[in-house]
């Protein structure tokens, strides 16, 4: 498939898939809380309704930032699905997020301001791990191009178990779900009102929603990349990760931002950097990497349990903190 066709499919299908996922999210969450939940298409209805509303603003230019947020999120996804350089994709995503934050600053309301600050802290928390993920993928495939990474014959997750877990941790932040829904909570009226999106309404809020759909699809696409050599497994795992994020959202209370940044950086250091360190030591002895695919499956599987075990204390710790809060 030529990259242009892939981009076209992404542009059209991503909001549909993203919206449906959001619908499922609400449905599953409701079931976990013994509610019935809205229809699957509810997110679309919401966006359509928002679209019809009057546009209220505090500062006249605040909506422009959001338009660019959406544009750049789409751009990011297009770069990714077009098979471009992974680092470039990350930078584009960061740029998009910065526009979002600047829009909230521009709105000049105390609540959106704190939301913006917290969003920045969250960005600072996940950025290292996201970069390390790209670097880890590069070390295995010797290329930053998404295209080459996707077509690489090895199952990346086997070489990058730590990176994968670390990435999973940052996904919790990126999806803006509990325990990291610090900057804008989806749940009812809370200490920050609606945080970063407090002063946005009408079409602009609809645009933010659509941007999140695009963003989520792109993130799940990145999860797929870890399993790209076995497409069916990849799709399954992407879906599984999404369900996992919903589960965590419902199990955990919100953490403080201090905990968020400390734990995310710890995860990046231990899981991400640890994995990369091991890889760089291994590649010093290239023989270890040259094992045929069959052999590789058995061996690193044992390796995978180690970081998983290392992760459990961290998770337990997080759990305790959540309870204390």
């Amino acid at each position, binding site marked *: 498939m030529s990259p242009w066709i892939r981009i076209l499919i992404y542009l059209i299908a991503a909001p549909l898939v993203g919206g449906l996922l959001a619908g499922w999210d609400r449905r599953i969450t409701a079931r976990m809380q013994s509610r019935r939940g809205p229809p699957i298409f509810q997110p679309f209805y919401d966006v359509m309704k928002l679209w019809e509303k009057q*546009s*209220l*603003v*505090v*500062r*006249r*230019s605040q*909506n*422009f930032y959001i*338009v*660019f947020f959406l544009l*750049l999120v789409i*751009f990011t996804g297009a*770069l990714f699905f077009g098979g*471009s*350089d992974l*680092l*470039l994709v990350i*930078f*584009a995503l*960061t*740029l998009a997020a*910065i526009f979002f*934050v*600047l829009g909230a*600053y*521009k*709105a*000049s*309301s*105390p*609540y*959106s*301001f704190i939301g913006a*600050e917290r969003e*920045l*802290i969250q*960005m*600072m928390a996940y*950025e*290292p*791990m996201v*970069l*390390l993920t790209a*670097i880890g993928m*590069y*070390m295995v495939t010797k290329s930053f191009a998404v295209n080459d990474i996707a077509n690489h014959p090895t199952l990346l997750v086997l070489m990058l178990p730590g990176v994968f877990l670390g990435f999973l941790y940052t996904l919790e932040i990126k999806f803006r779900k509990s325990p990291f829904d610090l900057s804008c909570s989806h749940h009812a009226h809370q200490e920050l*009102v609606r945080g970063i999106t*407090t*002063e946005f309404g009408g079409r602009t809020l609809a645009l933010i929603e659509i941007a999140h759909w695009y963003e989520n699809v792109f993130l799940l696409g990145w999860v797929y990349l870890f399993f790209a050599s076995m497409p069916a497994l990849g799709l399954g795992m992407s879906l599984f990760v999404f369900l996992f994020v919903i589960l965590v959202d419902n199990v955990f209370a919100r953490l403080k931002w*201090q905990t968020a*940044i*400390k734990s995310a*950086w710890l995860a*990046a*250091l231990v899981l991400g950097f640890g994995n*990369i*360190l091991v*890889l*760089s030591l291994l590649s010093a002895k290239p023989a270890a990497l040259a094992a045929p695919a069959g052999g590789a499956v058995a061996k690193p599987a044992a390796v995978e349990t180690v970081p998983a075990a290392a992760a459990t204390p961290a998770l337990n710790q997080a759990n305790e903190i959540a309870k204390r809060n």
Partner: protein
Amino acid sequence: VTLILTLILLPLATGLVLLGLKSNLPRQILVSGVTLAVCGGCVVLALMPTPVKLGDLPVSQHGINLGMLLVEVAMSLFILYVGIRAKKPLIVLLTLAQAGLMVWFELTAGKHLEVAQNLFVDKFAVIMALINGIVGGGICIYALGYMREYHEVAHRDVQDRRPLFFALLFVFMGAMFGLIFANNLAWLFLFWEITTLCSFLLIGYTRTDEAKRNALRALVMNLAGGLAFAVAIVFLHRQTGNIELQAMINSPKALVLLPAALLCFAGITKSAQLPFSSWLLGAMVAPTPVSALLHSSTMVKAGVYLVLRMAPSVAGTKVGMMVALVGAVTFVVGSLAAITSSEAKRVLAWSTVANLGLIVLCGGIGTAEAVWAGILLIIFHAVAKCLLFLCVGVVEHKLHSRNIEDMSGLVVRMPKVAIMMQIGMAGMFLAPFGMLISKWAVLKAVVDAYPSLSVFIAFGSAATLFFWVKWMGKLIEVVGTGERIKKEMVLGEAIALYGLSAATALACLLFPLISIRFIEPYVYEVFGQAASLGEGNVIIMTAMMGVVMLFPVCFIGYGRGVKVMDAYLGGANVQSSVKFRSIADSVQDVSIGNYYLHNLFTEAGLARWGVISCSALLVALVTLAII
């Protein structure tokens, strides 16, 4: 050769003339004229094919050497005097050691030494010359307007010593040209010491106690670097019988490793890497043009220039690794420390320290890719950082504060300066502009050479993002109605600021061209292999830049189709978005402040750890080099 000599000597001579000029008008004419001439000279130089063929010098070499020795001795005597008067035994000791060493060297070995090429101009030197000429020149013109306001309005208590101030600016500039073009290390050393002395005098310009203290600190640290430089020259002569920069780079690594390590050490002191970063932070007490000069076009750039020159000699060695680590640690510590400060100049200073760390990291790695990225960083950093400093200077005069919290709503109060500041910041960290391109290149270079070092970049750049965006947010956020300040800047300031904004934008847009025309040939010359980002990526970058630059177009639809409301304050608005009714019917003001993460880490704590670890690394560096 005339052009080169003019570039070096004209600013020096101008400096001497300026020393005697007491009135404003002739000074303005002279400064503007010489700046234009120097900029013109740099551009002409840039258009020449390199390496520029240099004819023989008009004077005999030994005569020049003798003259230089005299200048050096005179400088040493002056520094000795300063050291004794301030009762700083360390200054006296360091000066005596390095002066004694150089005099002994010149009188014994130097007599018989035949240096084939005293000056040398390659693409890298041309780039540095352009930065020095254009950015440095911009600062001089800015200073004309700024210093007038400084003495006549803002700081009446400070003694007016403008003749000395402008003289020093130009001597500094001339010394920097000399430093860039020198191939004879003894010459380079002389210019190196001149910049040290100039920076000492400029930092101490206001003669307050704090200024004096900080100036002395800068002097001590740079003298330590100077001593390392002197020792390096002596050792290099012992090992190879030669003191030429070009010859040194082409010598086998094992032979020149020790001198190279010492020169890297000197570069690290000058570019204010940890553990020496405190002198640059202290340098903020000086008037803004001085900070801008030290941070962007001269001084610290001299340090990284030397480190990047040493790159081929230390690449792949343990020494190189140590240099890279010093840079990497400095980058992370500097970026984190910048988060904790609310003072604009301090944030900028820490960010300079961090970015220089990145460049030193490139030099330590020393591969073709890394050096390419390092040079790109130097260019972007010089332009954008200078712009930011000068903007802060203007804001400080108008708001009488350089606290970032006080800059809230600047976009309404001083729209022009605020927009230029935004341009500078975008150039400093935002994709797809300057610094980010370079950071990306650095990341690639690091991953190829030492993958584990990439973790420093990952954490450091995350921190960078935080402090820049929160500052940007502060500028655009508007609480209440800010009064528009009438005259934002005077003529000299305006010329410099507009010019530098244009230069920042141009550098970002034209970076592929700069790379092809200057950096790639240099890298190819030195390493025999080319480095770049790949054509496809550059196209995507340019596309992205196009998208972002469309942003101002939005403002055509400013205020159309929207209804303006008060912000939600959690209580009834009493005065639009500024006051609200709170508990027990009390009326509360809204105040919004940034996060500084003080409960996560403090500036002092970070600096302490940084100093300890980097000192250890430097000890390791020297030890490894000796072994």
